[in-house]
Structure formats: structure tokens, C-alpha cells
């Protein structure tokens, strides 16, 4: 596949791995956070850690939209889905995310009409086809996905589709990164910046990280070569004593992002004063709701939601994993009580979740393989 295969080219990947090794100061440890779960997924799926020198450590950031959904929001969604006239729709990612009392999969087995869609436009299509049902789309995702939701609401408004609404759970990446940077227990040397979010918001919003926190950030693509190159770029900045925002993924990410997408978000959505992130707690100005002008499409206003805050299970250490403070396997329940079949935390659900990625792809005896 064009724009995919060439970035997995074995020769180039190995050459770049050699360059990285050459660039590392053997007397120093490097800790980089890949903010984005998509990167986490790529890293584990391709076994990229095997290619990195021992003194380069990657820690996994909060950029997995499924992982940061608090249990109460899942419960609210299931509450909506249980209304007999409702068809709840969402992405396949949500299927197994545990709420306080089960997941969509369980609610579906118990009788709720929940359907997985590829696109919010497909949810709208379901609404058109079922005029006597209320069709709710559970919107999740960072700025990458929010424009699609916004465009779908605009289309629904244009067509006057009155039985469609959105249960909005879009979160924003910058407040998430800031929460990490402000957390006292983490020492990072730089960030691998989220590629697809940046296609929407551009690279400028990261400036504060370099400026205020003195950390380099490289916006990165999602293929092995992209990630290795970004690490090489971070190491180069460190070697040269620079802390800048750079764009490795310029083939997709314009420096200014996508203004049309930003405008769509601006029209349809409003900034929430605060929003709870799973494991990270309430973060100010960190999420989007439906704007007043589109209140008719806002499931939160259309349905009477319990809106309970559900405490995470005691054993759950997702917050620490999301902040990169703990490696997945350092969580006490990892792999025994908490597995992808029976997840306790959200990080074990999404294929971008650090725990799931590590459990699914990374759980083997590296020494034996290397030997």
C-alpha cells in the first residue's frame, strides 16, 4: 500500500535503528512519551522497542480516547441505550469498555439495541432509516474525530433529522498533555506528538511545551519509520541542546492544521468548563459538549441522565499508566485479574490502551527471543 509499505521498509528501518543507537549517549537514559495511543499500538504491534537501545525508554501517554472515558459516562450511555425506542450507535472500540455495571456488549446481550458503525454518518443513516426510533451516536475521540461528529450534526440539522442526537465525549489533547507535564512524579525528555490530532489542530498548540516546560516535541506519523525518525529527531534536538516543536509527519499534518475542521468544531461544539478523565480526574477546559445552537441534537439534554460519578475499581491503576508513571505490567492486577477478556481498566480495552497493547503484543520473554 502506498504511503504505508515504504514506511515499513526493512532496510530503512534497520538503518534508522542503527542511526539512533549511534546518536544515543550510552551514559544517559532517555525517556520519551508517545502521547498518542496510535503510536503505542504501532510500537507494540511492530515490536519497535526491540530496535531501540536499552537506554531509550518509551512511556505511553493519555492519548487513547477510549482509555480516558470514565465509568460514569459508559453507564450514562447504557442508560440511554436501554430506552426501548433508542438505537445507540458508536465505534467498535466502545464495545467492551466497562462501566459501573457492564459494557455495551453486556447491555446488548441484556436487550439494548446497540450497533457499531464505521462513521458517525452511518449513525445518521440509521436515524434516517428508523424514523420511529431515537438514534444516539456516542461520540468519542480527540480533535481528530470531533470534526466528523460536528459535520454529521450539521448534516442532520440541514436535513432536519429530528431523531438523531449525539452523546458527546470528545476530549482535547492539550489539557491532557498539560496534566501530564504538571504531574510531579514523571521525568520526561521529550514527546512524540500525536499525528492525526495535529492534522486538525496543527503544530502551533504544542509551542508551550517547548517554551514553558523545556521539552522537545516531534509530531509523528504512525508507521515504524515515522516513529523511529521522530525518536531520531528528538535525540538530535537533545544532542544539539534544542527544545522545539518539529513536524515529522508533514505529508499529512499542515503546520496550521485544518481550519475547516476547526471551524466545524467551533460551530457545533462548546468547551466544557471541566470534564472527568478516567484515572486523571477532572481537567478544566478539556472536553467538548454540543453547543446551545444545536441543543436539539444533544443527547445530554434530551435524556435524563443519572450522571453519577463512578469510582474506579480500587485495584485499578490506569491513572498511573495513562500518566506514564507505571509500566502496564507494574499494575498489580495486570494480566491476572485484568485482561482484555475481563478488563478492569480502560487501558486494557482499546487496542491503543497501553495495557492492552502490552498484553496483546508485548507479553513475552524478550531475553529468550534475543538469545
Amino acid at each position, binding site marked *: 500500500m502506498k504511503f504505508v509499505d515504504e514506511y515499513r521498509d526493512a532496510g530503512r528501518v534497520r538503518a534508522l535503528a542503527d542511526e539512533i543507537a549511534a546518536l544515543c549517549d550510552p551514559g544517559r537514559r532517555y525517556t520519551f512519551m508517545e502521547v498518542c495511543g496510535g503510536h503505542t499500538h504501532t510500537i507494540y504491534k511492530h515490536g519497535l522497542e526491540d530496535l531501540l537501545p536499552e537506554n531509550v525508554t518509551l512511556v505511553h501517554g493519555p492519548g487513547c480516547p477510549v482509555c480516558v472515558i470514565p465509568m460514569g459516562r459508559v453507564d450514562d450511555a447504557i442508560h440511554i441505550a436501554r430506552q426501548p425506542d433508542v438505537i445507540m450507535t458508536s465505534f467498535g472500540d466502545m464495545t*467492551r469498555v466497562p462501566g459501573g455495571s457492564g459494557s455495551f*456488549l*453486556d447491555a*446488548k*446481550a*441484556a*436487550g439494548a439495541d446497540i450497533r457499531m458503525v464505521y462513521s458517525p454518518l452511518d449513525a445518521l443513516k440509521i436515524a434516517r432509516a428508523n424514523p420511529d426510533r431515537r438514534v444516539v451516536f456516542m461520540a468519542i475521540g480527540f480533535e481528530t474525530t470531533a470534526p466528523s461528529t460536528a459535520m454529521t450534526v450539521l448534516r442532520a440539522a440541514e436535513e432536519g433529522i429530528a431523531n438523531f442526537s449525539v452523546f458527546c465525549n470528545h476530549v482535547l489533547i492539550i489539557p491532557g498533555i498539560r496534566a501530564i507535564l504538571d504531574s510531579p512524579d514523571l521525568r520526561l525528555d521529550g514527546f512524540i506528538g500525536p499525528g492525526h490530532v495535529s492534522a486538525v489542530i496543527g503544530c502551533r498548540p504544542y509551542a508551550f511545551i517547548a517554551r514553558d516546560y523545556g521539552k522537545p516535541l516531534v509530531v509523528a506519523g504512525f508507521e515504524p519509520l515515522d516513529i523511529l525518525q521522530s525518536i531520531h529527531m528528538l535525540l538530535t534536538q537533545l544532542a544539539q541542546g534544542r527544545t522545539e516543536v518539529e513536524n515529522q509527519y508533514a505529508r499529512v499534518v499542515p503546520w496550521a492544521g485544518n481550519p475547516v475542521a476547526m471551524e466545524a468544531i467551533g460551530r457545533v461544539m462548546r468547551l466544557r468548563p471541566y470534564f472527568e478523565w478516567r484515572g486523571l480526574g477532572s481537567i478544566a477546559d478539556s472536553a467538548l459538549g454540543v453547543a446551545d445552537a444545536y441543543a436539539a441534537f444533544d443527547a445530554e439534554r434530551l435524556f435524563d441522565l443519572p450522571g453519577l460519578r463512578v469510582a474506579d475499581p480500587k485495584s485499578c491503576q490506569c491513572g498511573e499508566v495513562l500518566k506514564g508513571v507505571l*509500566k502496564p*505490567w*507494574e499494575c498489580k492486577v*495486570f*494480566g*491476572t485479574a485484568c485482561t*482484555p*477478556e*475481563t478488563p478492569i481498566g480502560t487501558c486494557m480495552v482499546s487496542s491503543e490502551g497501553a495495557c492492552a497493547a502490552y498484553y496483546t503484543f508485548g*507479553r*513475552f*520473554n524478550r*531475553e529468550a527471543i534475543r538469545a
Partner: protein
Amino acid sequence: MSREQQVLDRIERARRRRPVVRDERITMAHGAGGKATRTLVEAVFVEAFGNPLLAPLGDGATLPAGAGDLAFTTDAFVVSPLFFPGGDIGDLAVNGTVNDLAMCGARPRYLSAGFILEEGFPVADLRRVTASMAAAASAAGVTIVTGDTKVVERGKADGCYVTTTGVGTVEHAFSAARPGDAVIVSGPIGEHGAAIMLARGDFGIEGDIASDTAPLHGLALALLEAVPGQVRALRDATRGGVATVLNELAGTAGLSITVEEDTLPVRPPVTGVCELLGLDPLYVACEGRFVAVVAGEHAERAVETLRGHALGAQAAVIGRVEEGNPGMVLLRTGFGGTRVVDVLVGDPLPRIC
């Protein structure tokens, strides 16, 4: 060993433990072929049916079958409700296939079980079904050696469908029916069908009727051994009832069968249900009765043998094979009237006229 490696080892130990089904209901994941499917198979099916032939859980079972002809039969079970007085879909599915093997003159040996489960089906109910199947298989001396499970979305099944297929070793052959042969029924008729109608509750009738579901191979083999070479045919009277079986037998033989109405064993509450709903017990399903055609001169010994068995205590000669009217079943009333007993048209439905 590194801390990470210790965790990995702990995980591998956990993975090797027999899995536990934590879900209360069947979800689509149980049918996806991945971990949930495997967990369901190991924690429910293997747990209930466990035996060395099943254990490899491969693509199929390998059967040490020995020489001789095999009997091979299949039935899909879709009964509603799944649980009813006298049994459930589980023992029904085992007994039904055991019986079809027995009707072939075979000793039932191996069963396969294919499950189609509806999303949302309670796992506890599935366990009840598999426990019944295991008990019925053990009672019948058969081993469930292979199986399959599919999950369909809510609204695309009715809880649980079970298809069993059986293999048995043929021990007896049948001779062609001739005029003068006796037609024997192994016990009172219509009890399964009547029990299901009541259990469904659609008609508001209450009564003490239990399904007659039972494995008939013991009774069948006893009969086949008591009058060797004298049994012309065996047929369990399931869907369509005794009337349908008699028509099949008459059709195959190219002869007629005349039934004496007075000799038909029907228990009073079955008569009551049939009278209320305007049904004829001859068409109501049994799941633990067969019809045997036996050489006339051995009929007495045959009935004696059957009556010596708990499942055949009320066995009776109900008619004779006769010449003329080929393929037809006739019924003679106590006062000498005669009528046709035809194959059922459509479902037996309650009627007002």
C-alpha cells in the same frame, strides 16, 4: 529473573488455569471464535461432557468404531419453552438422537452437539441444558465427542437450539412387513406434545402432564433380542405423532395398517387436553414411545418383553398390517366403524369446529 519476567510468568500460570465464565449472559463475543468462545467451550461444554475423545477439542473426534455397519442420524431441537415438565431441550436432544439410532437397530455410541445460542441467553440456563445432556448421555451410555457453538444476535434465535448427531453400531437388521404382522406401541401416546402445549401456557390449560422424553435404546434392544429376526420396523413417534409414523410404515410396506381404536393407550389428562383443543392424540408428539411392527405370532412375547421394562409398562398391540388399501392407515372403532388415519396437515392447532 526480572520483575517484568516474574509478572509474565504469573500471567502464563493464570492463562493455563481452566477458564471461568464470568458473564451472566451469552454475548456476541462467545461466538467470535476467540477467547470467550474458548472459555465457554472449556468452562461449560467440556466441564459438562468431559471425556477423553472430546478432550483434544480438535476439528473433530476420532472414533475407534470397530467393524460393521454404522447408524447415523441427526436432529435439530428447537423446542419452546426450553424447560418443561419432564425434561428440557438438553435431554430431549440427547434422547431424540439416541432413539433414532435405536430405531435403526443400532447401539448408540457417539454424539455430536451443535449449539446455536441467542445473544442474551443466560449462561445459567446453558449450564442446566448441558447438565441435562450429560446426564441423558450417561444414562444412554453414549459419549458426546465433538461439538460446535455459534452465537447469533438477539432476535435471531429463541434462546438455544441444539442439533445432535449420533453414530451407533448396527446390531439388528429388519425384515419386510407382511400382512398379519402386529403393530405395537411401547406406551401411552401424546404426552410430550401435550406437556409442551401446557408448558407454553398459550391456551391457559393446567394439568399434570410431563413429557415422556426417554432413551429408548434399552427397550428397543430388549425387544430386538427377545424376538430375533421378527421385528419388521421400529419408529419413534415424535413430531406428527403415532399417526404419522403409521403412515410412514404403511407407505414403506406398501400394505395397510388397521388400528383398533380401543387399544390405543392414552392417559386421561392427554385426552382432556385434546378434547379441549379439538386435537387427536394420534397426531400429538411423543419423545419416549416407539411403534414396532412385529411378526404376528411373536406379538405376545414382544409385548411381554416391553412390559417387563419400566419404559414399556403399558405397551400394547394397537393394530395389524393388512393387505389392500396400500399405504393407508385405517382405524376401526369399538363398534365397527372404519376411517382413514391420514398424515397430519399443518400444525396441530386448537380449533372450534
